[in-house]
């Protein structure tokens, strides 16, 4: 018994040791540190959006419309006089919400389908692959537009579209990894013991597949944020008056010859977010799994 305890202790301490070195290596990499800072700022901004500015994102102030940045409105106001900084902070909230929901759902479904395709019988693999490839062959935004034409725009539809179009990407990555693992001797060893396919997938495949997948998924956050703001830019995402970076950019586009500030205020946080997540994701990937290649 005592041996077991001490074992757990050693294995636990070794894994947390590993996490500490990974973190310290992340902050020692300048770009990784920059990414971490940007992502933290975004998270803080989104979490405390209600408290960071005195304004409400929906409060109109028509007298002060399209104001340039000033001390009272740090990023100016939009065509309805709403405080742009407040709307940007709340827009970040929407973006993160969409990313969190859609990626986590797509990840789970993609993981299951990918492992089934990779480990299951050939016909199942072929069927799933065909569906994956068919879904992937729709240009994402155009597919989203067609779907939203039918249902009408909403945040839920944005999430649905992202889930549907990301599942094949994750599933294909998991499938490739599963196929590679399938031929490894440790899987043959497990099968020769009479291990059930479910146990093989759960005990032997999952831990090997999940790690790289998480890194890839974290690098997908910018893509998802881009799609959300892109659809909102087209008026196909969140409904007004909810704040979104895309909506701010759309307003800015409409008034681009009047004031550049709206376009700047909508675009800069979007760029910083995508850069932040990308830098952090790349640094993490290089630290944790340098051989990982993005399977486009």
């Amino acid at each position, binding site marked *: 018994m005592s041996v077991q305890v001490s074992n757990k202790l050693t294995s636990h301490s070794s894994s947390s040791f590993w996490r500490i070195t990974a973190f310290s290596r992340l902050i020692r990499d300048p770009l990784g540190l920059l990414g971490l800072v940007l992502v933290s700022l975004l998270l803080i901004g989104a979490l405390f959006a209600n408290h960071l500015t005195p304004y409400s994102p929906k409060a109109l102030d028509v007298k002060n419309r399209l104001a340039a940045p000033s001390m009272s409105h740090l990023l100016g106001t939009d065509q309805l006089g709403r405080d742009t900084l407040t709307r940007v902070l709340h827009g970040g909230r929407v973006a993160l919400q969409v990313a969190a929901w859609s990626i986590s759902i797509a990840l789970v479904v993609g993981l299951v389908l990918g492992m089934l395709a990779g480990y299951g019988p050939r016909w199942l693999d072929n069927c799933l692959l065909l569906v994956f490839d*068919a879904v992937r062959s729709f*240009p994402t935004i*155009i597919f989203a*537009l067609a779907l939203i034409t*039918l249902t009408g725009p909403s945040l839920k539809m944005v999430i649905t579209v992202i889930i549907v179009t990301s599942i094949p990407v994750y599933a294909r990555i998991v499938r490739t990894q599963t196929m590679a693992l399938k031929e490894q001797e440790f899987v043959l060893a497990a099968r020769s013991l009479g291990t059930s396919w479910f146990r093989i997938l759960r005990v032997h495949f999952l831990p090997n597949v999940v790690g790289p997948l998480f890194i890839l998924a974290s690098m997908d956050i910018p893509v998802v944020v881009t799609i959300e703001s*892109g659809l909102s830019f087209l008026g196909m995402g969140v409904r007004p008056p909810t704040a979104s970076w895309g909506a701010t950019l759309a307003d800015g586009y409409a008034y681009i010859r009047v004031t*550049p500030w709206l376009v700047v205020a909508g675009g800069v946080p979007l760029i910083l977010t995508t850069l932040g997540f*990308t830098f952090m994701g790349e640094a993490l990937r290089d630290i944790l799994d340098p051989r990982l*290649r993005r399977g486009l």
Partner: protein
Amino acid sequence: MLIYTLKRLGLTVAIVAAAMSILFLMIHFVPGDAVTLALGPRATEDMREAYRIKMGLDRPIHVQYIMFFANVLRGDIGQDVFSNQPVTTIISHHLPHTVVLVIVSISWSAFLGIFLGCFSAVHRGSLIDRFTGVVTVSAIAIPSFVVSLYSLLIFAVLLRVLPAIGAGEPGDLIDQAKHLVLPAFALGLGWVGYIARLVRASMLEIMGENYIRSARSYGLMEYTVIYSYALKIAVLPTVALLGVGVGNMLSGALFAELVFARPGIGKLIYEMVMARNFPVVQGAVLITTLMFVVSALISDLINAYLDPRVRSSL
């Protein structure tokens, strides 16, 4: 190569069929009434009934499914609700603008991307390599529609050096080219990053391969080793990626066309979505999907042809 080509063709047909099926299912099972969508809420019940019969919507679903395929095979992908023109006609007016934009964008980004990727792989770890690394990652991370907006803001609104709106005068090639610069820049920028990084990564991987070590052990010129041997292998995955790139660019083109008011297929789709003209939207989705699948097919075949391991097989 013959077998590979046939297999790849068969797969393409299967993918297109599957994609069409998904589209069909989506139209019929997603909540929302196609008739109301097509005619608007003010249409009378008679008009609705007439439309249903005209479109075959009164028939059983499997008949509709077969009709859908049969019509597409005949080249009939529906009619514009308002003008009653065939959708194909409308699309054919807009398509060339998009095709030109996508081809120009992918070309310049492939050209620059391969050069940058190769350059930073050869000078691995140097300052230039690190700088290129940051620039390329940033190029990937920044959404193309934000690039469109910002380049519009900077070059067309603030500096006024390039035209902002439209595709240029028909027949005036120089004017058309000028109108192409900003959209093609916005669309291609991210892909410069993608391609550069892919080429750099595969170059580095290949430079560590045993065959490069043996080539060096024979005392070959570094030029031969890098450009005739390593780069030739490193561009193979890039070629395969370009097909996917075209597909992704079709999405990006929608924003670029919208921002720069370029009358391509993306702008058409957006306008038709806004006008709730579903047959045109559906037709455009089909056409763009087909373009995606075909470009992936072409790039795969080129890739296979460049790789003697595939070319020399049956």
